[in-house]
């Protein structure tokens, strides 16, 4: 088992990084007055861990016995019927799903499937806990229509169905939904908190940590706890005992992007652009999301640039990312950004060195 899963806190009491939030959630559950919840925060900050621990607090250990189901739903959409495939993770008391997987058909998932699930009231012999929980991931990727349909569902079935929504940025969730939920902001753990967790894992695994080593990993992790633990484990595999000068390798694709960045800096010509395009395709084919590529590329380029160029490059990165969101094919826009950068950089070089 990966350390990330092995040392994932199982109960609200064991949570290390967001103790005050965990305590507040616990209070909510014990008071039996649980509203709809909306968790938001950057990736790797612990949203999912908190949600799982919360479910366990609500339903006891049964919440962990989940089964994966892949079901095709027949949805009646006016004149025709649609087949929508959806993967769900469910236990006796909760169902977890990812409605944005259906792409532009997400509206039907919300209107039909979620409504159907919300309607069915779970039966419990003791007359206790007669409510179920729906966990929806990535609500920020839902379309506007789907979000509007959701708000009616939230009100209508609120007596026996609680929604737990989970997303990265709450700006993309409509005000109407936000105002119906208790919003819980999960911030990324600070580097000190990451160090603490890493040291704890090291102790449990019986590893010798040289001083400053955990801090080094934490610094590289970009405040994502998941990433920190993963790279900690990678280091363990690569070389043990640790030395404080050990190289903490970054991900393959990140090195690849760094390579692209240095290619671009070295030569600005149509020929080089062609080569870069090949590399970008390579990344896209390996399912690295285009906006992440663009962001990483910007990060790498900013490291090497003069201050006066940074503003300009940032502006164009934001500009092309926006266009990418509106458009269909990501490669056009990433390439356009590369071309723009080349032209700016070239004229900068000419202006400076003649």
């Amino acid at each position, binding site marked *: 088992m990966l350390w990330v899963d092995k040392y994932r806190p199982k109960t609200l009491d064991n949570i290390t990084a967001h103790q005050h939030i965990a305590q507040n959630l616990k209070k909510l559950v014990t008071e039996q007055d649980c509203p709809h919840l909306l968790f938001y925060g950057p990736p790797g900050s612990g949203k999912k861990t908190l949600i799982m621990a919360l479910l366990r607090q609500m339903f006891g250990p049964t919440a962990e016995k989940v089964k994966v189901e892949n079901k095709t739903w027949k949805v009646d959409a006016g004149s025709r019927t649609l087949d929508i495939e959806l993967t769900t993770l469910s236990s006796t008391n909760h169902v977890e799903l990812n409605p944005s997987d259906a792409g532009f058909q997400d509206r039907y998932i919300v209107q039909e499937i979620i409504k159907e699930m919300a309607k069915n009231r779970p039966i*419990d012999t003791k007359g206790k806990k007669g409510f179920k929980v729906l966990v929806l991931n990535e609500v920020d990727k839902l379309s506007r229509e789907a979000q*509007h349909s959701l*708000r009616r569902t939230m009100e209508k079935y609120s007596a026996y169905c609680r929604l737990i929504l989970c997303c990265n940025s709450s*700006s993309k969730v409509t005000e109407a939904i936000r105002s119906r939920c208790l919003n819980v902001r999960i911030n990324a753990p600070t580097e000190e908190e990451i160090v603490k967790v890493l040291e704890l894992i090291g102790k449990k695994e019986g590893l010798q940590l040289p001083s400053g080593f955990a801090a080094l990993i934490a610094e590289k992790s970009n405040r994502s706890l998941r990433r920190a633990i993963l790279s900690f484990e990678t280091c363990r595999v690569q070389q043990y005992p640790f030395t404080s000068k050990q190289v903490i390798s970054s991900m393959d694709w990140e090195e690849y992007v760094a390579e692209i960045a240095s290619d671009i800096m070295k030569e600005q010509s149509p020929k080089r652009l062609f080569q870069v395009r090949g590399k970008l395709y390579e990344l896209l084919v390996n399912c690295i999301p285009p906006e992440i590529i663009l962001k990483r590329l910007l990060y790498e380029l900013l490291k090497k640039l003069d201050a006066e160029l*940074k503003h*300009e490059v*940032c502006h164009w990165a934001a500009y092309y*990312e926006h266009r990418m969101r509106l458009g269909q094919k990501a490669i056009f826009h990433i390439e356009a950004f590369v071309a723009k950068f080349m032209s700016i950089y070239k004229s900068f070089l000419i202006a400076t060195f003649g």
Partner: protein
Amino acid sequence: MAPLLQSSQPWVEKYRPKQVKDVAHQDEVVRVLTNTLETTNCPHMLFYGPPGTGKTTTALAIAHQLFGPELYKSRVLELNASDDRGINVVRTKIKSFAAVAVGSGQRQGGYPCPPYKIIILDEADSMTEDAQNALRRTMETYSKVTRFFFICNYISRIIEPLASRCAKFRFKPLSEEIMTTRILHICNEEGLNLDAEALSTLSSISQGDLRRAITYLQSAARLFGSSISSKDLISVSGVVPQEVVEAFLIACKSGDFDLANKEVNNVIAEGYPVSQMLSQLLEVVVEADDISDEQKARICKKLGEADKCLVDGADEYLQLLDVAGNTMRALCNMPQEFSYEC
């Protein structure tokens, strides 16, 4: 938890005024409507104003007071944005409801029960223009037996022919004073402890929207128990703390791009919603004394663009970084145009 506890009812519903005279701060409307209650004479109405000022509450209250609980179901049709209100609904559902005649007015159980029905169209500004046009003739034809109440935030989105058929009432944002008394009343009922600082924070973050204030109050009470500080309120409301906005602006003023970048990274890692950040930034920039008008204009222009991009779904980090870059250029009097663009 099968029978849900009473406390899970939203306070917004629990403390909704049941009678027209209890509606706070909207004297004009209340005066006209109390008059209506006596004479049972009522024109078509159009209520408009910002959210959380009591428009829906007033409409529901007058309907309840006119008809009482027994007749309410048969005499009042309530439609809001979550119901389908396309042109078909106007042509079928609304028209057929409007067409039914009702018995002459005899008082029942102490309620006036005037001889007409009421159709309440909540959030009417989200109706399509076609649907609104379809209503025009319906309103006139059945005006003997049906009164329409339109409720909307933006009167400009109601087509002129509809607006001219109604008596218009503007609902004002609630003053801080009235808000405070309302909130204190709820605190007393619920047994909450709220100090003066928290109270003023609550009024300022809710900006005259009583519903929002009550929702925040309830969330905070659920999370933090009976004594609530202003920090708790800020944390449930999703407002970015003032220090963060200020640190961002200071970083921009310094003219050091890497410092600004670090600040942007910090905002994203802390998980603050960038759209909220932008609107708070706007507030700070507009009110700042040490920024010239031209600089303000440049910053505001960029903020507008970034907001639009965010609505389109653009990446938060990149947009905020772009805003930071532009703000910095404006504050440090660097030229607006980029030097190497061709």
